[in-house]
């Protein structure tokens, strides 16, 4: 790496941690704001009543998408020093994860626009609107399985493995990351085959280790930065 001062390294680590926290916070706020559509079976009616809230949720999810890529960009110089291909691969995969988040946002915003027209319709036209709305909502559900579950598992596995090998963070922390990644990855495969429902409580338990890991990692990076010896070794 070009000679960065310890202070600059610390600043990079703080930014990485801040992106992780922003991603988690915006993800939670986004899902809560989406509740009228995600939880209510009559979401075309509740969607129009809460349209501003859904749009706000979409904005929070957009910030989530940017923060997720942000974590990858801030980590890239460190991951690349250990292995350039894996570092670049991680950035690419993280971008794929956000592609799903963005498709999900698009579907939710489309439901809002759609519900505005739906409430003006007569009963005869309502059924085809309901089917198309279901299409949009199903798409959004799948983006959630493939993005924040499947791809997050793949991505977290990659960077945690590099952390483990390069000792950029303490080993216990990277092992927690690898465990959380494998857990959410298996969870997403089970969701695909319909073994567990994406809206069940079980998936929350499966996602718990990775959520826990990201928060500890974020706090660790902000307080201590990347392990200085690992940075020196790779120069």
């Amino acid at each position, binding site marked *: 790496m070009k000679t960065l001062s310890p202070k600059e390294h610390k600043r990079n680590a703080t930014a990485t941690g801040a992106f992780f926290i922003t991603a988690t916070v915006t993800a939670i706020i986004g899902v809560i704001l989406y509740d009228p559509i995600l939880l209510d079976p009559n979401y075309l009616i509740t969607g129009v009543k809460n349209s501003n809230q859904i749009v706000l949720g979409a904005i929070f999810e957009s910030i989530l998408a940017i923060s997720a890529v942000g974590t990858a960009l801030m980590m890239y110089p460190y991951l690349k020093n250990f292995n350039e291909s894996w570092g670049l691969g991680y950035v690419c995969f993280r971008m*794929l994860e956000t*592609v799903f988040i963005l498709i999900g946002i698009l579907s939710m915003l489309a439901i809002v626009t759609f519900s505005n027209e739906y409430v003006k319709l007569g009963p005869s036209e309502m059924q085809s609107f309901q089917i198309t709305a279901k299409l949009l909502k199903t798409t959004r559900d799948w983006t959630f399985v*493939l993005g924040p579950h499947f791809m997050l598992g793949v991505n977290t596995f990659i960077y945690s493995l590099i952390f483990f090998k390069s000792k950029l963070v303490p080993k216990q922390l990277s092992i927690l990351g690898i465990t959380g990644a494998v857990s959410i990855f298996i969870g997403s495969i089970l969701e695909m085959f319909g073994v567990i429902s994406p809206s069940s409580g079980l998936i929350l338990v499966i996602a718990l280790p990775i959520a826990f890991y990201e928060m500890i990692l974020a706090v660790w990076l902000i307080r201590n930065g990347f392990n200085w010896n690992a940075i020196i070794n790779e120069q």
Partner: protein
Amino acid sequence: MTTLDSHRKNSLTAGILYLLTFVSIPTLSLYGPVHDANYITSSASDTPILIGGILEIIVALTGIGTAVALYPVLKKQNEGMALGLVSSRVLEAATIFAGVMFLLTVVTFHQSAASAEAAVTSRTLVTMYDRMFLIGQSFMPAINDLLLGFLLYHSRLVPRGLSLIGIIGGPVLLMGTFSVLFGLIGQREPLAALSAVPVAVFEFSLGIYLVVKGFKPTDGTPSN
């Protein structure tokens, strides 16, 4: 690790990943049932489509893998083009993922005992998948192989004859893609498949070559 070792490792990884990108061939038959107009009201199994989806996801991820594995070597030839290859592989993966999601949505519709009206929506999704396939797995690979063909040809990292197959295969596949887009040939006709043959030969033989022999020593790579 010496540079020579690391180059061998890069070429071996890229070669294996290139061969892995062929795992999606069974999707042609796995996706047969979903193309049936009555699929949504039929009691056909969804498992082949789910497996096909997972195979396509593997292809999307390994596709990016080939580009990032080659990147450290190719960037010595032309950093912009090497990064361009990585980027266009990401675009390709994004279109593959979007296509898979269309079919997964059809599966969900099928599982929830959909009405005849849902059949129209499902046909739309399958049509969108087919068009997405044309962009993601015909148009984008043609661009990727053109980029890669030029990079390999100029760097002489592999025999030039091999790179030439890619440089020729890219435009051939592009012509095939546009012929389908303009309705000159059907997407599921043999001629459309034929236009993809040179590119497939290029990627497959490149995979074998990289696994067996690795890069040839050039200015970019250290010689023995």
